[in-house]
């Protein structure tokens, strides 16, 4: 069961990565990042069966970080949208050197 869980975790993480690479909608990319976090959480929980509850504690931390990230990230996206009227990352290149 552990091996399967870790494999699933790797698969989900990869799907998240591919999503980040292929999509251009900022919110979707953001959700892909959440998926990656979830994948990592899965391996934490799976390994916590071996190493005690510390893994689950880390999942709690991950969730807190994810929540903080969602709050700030979405606020940034809203601010960008207000400015540019789009969340398509291709049209957002203020950081161009």
């Amino acid at each position, binding site marked *: 069961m552990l091996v399967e869980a870790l494999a699933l975790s790797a698969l989900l993480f990869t799907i998240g*990565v591919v999503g980040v*690479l292929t999509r251009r909608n900022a919110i979707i*990319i953001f959700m892909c990042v959440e998926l990656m976090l979830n994948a990592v959480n899965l391996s934490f929980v799976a390994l916590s069966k071996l190493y005690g509850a510390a893994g689950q504690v880390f999942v709690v931390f991950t969730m807190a970080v994810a929540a903080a990230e969602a709050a700030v990230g979405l606020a940034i996206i809203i601010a960008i949208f207000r400015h540019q009227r789009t969340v398509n990352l291709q049209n*957002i290149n203020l950081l*161009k*050197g």
Partner: protein
Amino acid sequence: MNPAMIPEGAHPLAATVARLVWLLPLLPLLGFLINGTLAMLGVAKIGPADPSANGGHGHGEVPGHADEHAHDDHGHPPRHKFAKIVSLVGPGVLVAAFALAVAIFAAMRGVEMEHPYLLTLFSWMPVGDLKLDATILLDPLSMTMVMVVTGVGMLIHVFSVGYMQDDPGYPRYFAYLNLFVFFMLLLVLGGSYPLLFVGWEGVGLCSYLLIGFWFSEKANADAGKKAFIMNRIGDFGFLVAMLLMFANFGTLDILGVAEQAAELPMGGVIATTIALFLFLGCTGKSAQIPLYTWLPDAMAGPTPVSALIHAATMVTAGVYLVARASGIFSMAPVAQLTVALVGAATAFFAATIGLKQWDIKKVLAYSTVSQLGYMFVAVGVGAYVAGIFHLVTHAFFKALLFLGSGSVIYVLHAAYHKTHNHDDAQDMRNMGGLRQYMPITFSLMWIATLAIAGIPLFSGFFSKDEILTSVFARISHSTLADASLLGMPGGTVLMIVYGLAVASALMTAIYMARMMLYTFHGPNRTGEGERPHLKEAPWVMTGPLVVLGALTAFGGWLNVPALLGAIGPVGGLEHFLEPVVGEAALRTTLGVAPHLPHSTELMLVGAAIFIAVAGIAFAVWRLKPAALVPRKDAPESTGIDRVLENKYFVDEGYAAAFVNPTVNASRTVLWKGFDAGIIDGLFVNGSALLARAFGWMGSQLQTGQVGTYAWVLLIGVITLLGAFTFR
């Protein structure tokens, strides 16, 4: 004492009030928070309103001081608007802490204290192998220190209510003082060296803040900085010692280190190095040669601060540390000899300077340095109980002396203040004959003087005698005698130590008697106008003095030597501290309790009494208070007097040897050559040019497309992961 860890709940103390020990440091912290908030809320004009402010260092006219007088002609200046709350909170938390300390002490007397009581509060730094908890270590040694800190601290807080009442920075003062007590309690209760170090640094900070309490005057601020910097040099030693401990023992818990230190070879390099570096830390904090010069300058702070921090508690932290680390020190006889020798040299050196000082607080400051030297002699020769005993009694009589001098200064300053005179309120040449004006202070200070001089049955006699006896006993039969320091056999070194200690005991008696004679006896030299204003200080100041006087007189009963077993229970403190330092002390004395023939011991005690009496008698015989003239009329001194009055020109020597060359070299080579030429020219501008070039190149890579960045990032991750996978 094998400090075997026993679980927290299993200790007999866990079921008593001692589990509230975490409240001890918390109470002063609470006081600090409250007073600090009040201080911030009611920021007042900061100025030298303290009696000793205009005399502490400047010795003369203070520019702008006349303006200070203008607004509060003869009346009391308005007290701080929060003065009432602060007067309640500041000493209040100390009273509560002291009450708790007494309760814990009582609980501790009721149980078997074979093992120390460890109370882990929370996990502090779980970093890799280093797993540090915030642990409180409660054992007889820390209990003794807690009693001294909270007890004497409480009295001094109460005294401060009177002494500082008119100061515009009243809440700030109490905030600092409370913070100091917090850190001091952290220092003595810390269960690991890093935690102890937090307290160690914290008291240093508070000392700095309080020395420079009237920071609007440069001299005071400079004195604070000097104390701070000299302490940093010592702290470097402490830090190195801690790093060495972690490198060699893999732990920083006090008990864990002690346990592992016992496994080391006797006199090995590791133990010696750690002990010497620890001692370097102690020389800074406890004002030993060569880092002692900050302590006399620290007298720039308010006098109660001098009493609490620079006499009773903080400066003794070094002694505490050596006793705390007795497990390491006892494995390193060479380091112990060093400690004893440095202590003895400091005791002698400072005593000679004390002979010729005119500033009453400076006399006491050098006396403190000298007495601290004594304590180091004691802990250096492995007589830890004697050292701690002297620490305790010294806390009593030196606090009494400082507070007494504070009340003298307070009264004198008030008198000068009334007549708009700007004479120095701390110079003994401006005092004299205060006996009739301040009878309570006068009698109490004489008690303290007799105690410090070593007159029998006063507390100082017992502790000092025990130190001298211990040194003598170890000359013949101890690990120290077998070791050698710089090619000199340990026995010889100890003989030198003993000689220096005896000589400084004699000088102690002389300069203390001198101070008393010049201050309280003979005709009054304050001035015609001021004389009617001289009167006893208010009760809130004399009250603590009376309590301290009682402690000074009877503190010796804490640890009565076997020789005088007739007057009370023998060796109370010794039995109390036995579980903590007993093993280390026995290690130094080769496993047997040090024992001198009865006749030898009697002879030593007789000699000590003779020295004390002779010193005082010599002072009374030679010094004629009537012949003194007020400071403004006094001629410049010459010859050896001048050297002693200027403290052997050590400060000037330091300036010539270290400070000025550093400044000059910095100015010419470092500033003009290195800084302006190489750093500015080559590195700053050159690297800026380089950075700009690289930046331009880099900016070409910045597409601004987050997607692209993600791609690049991912490819990097895959490369790294690949390298990690298929290596």
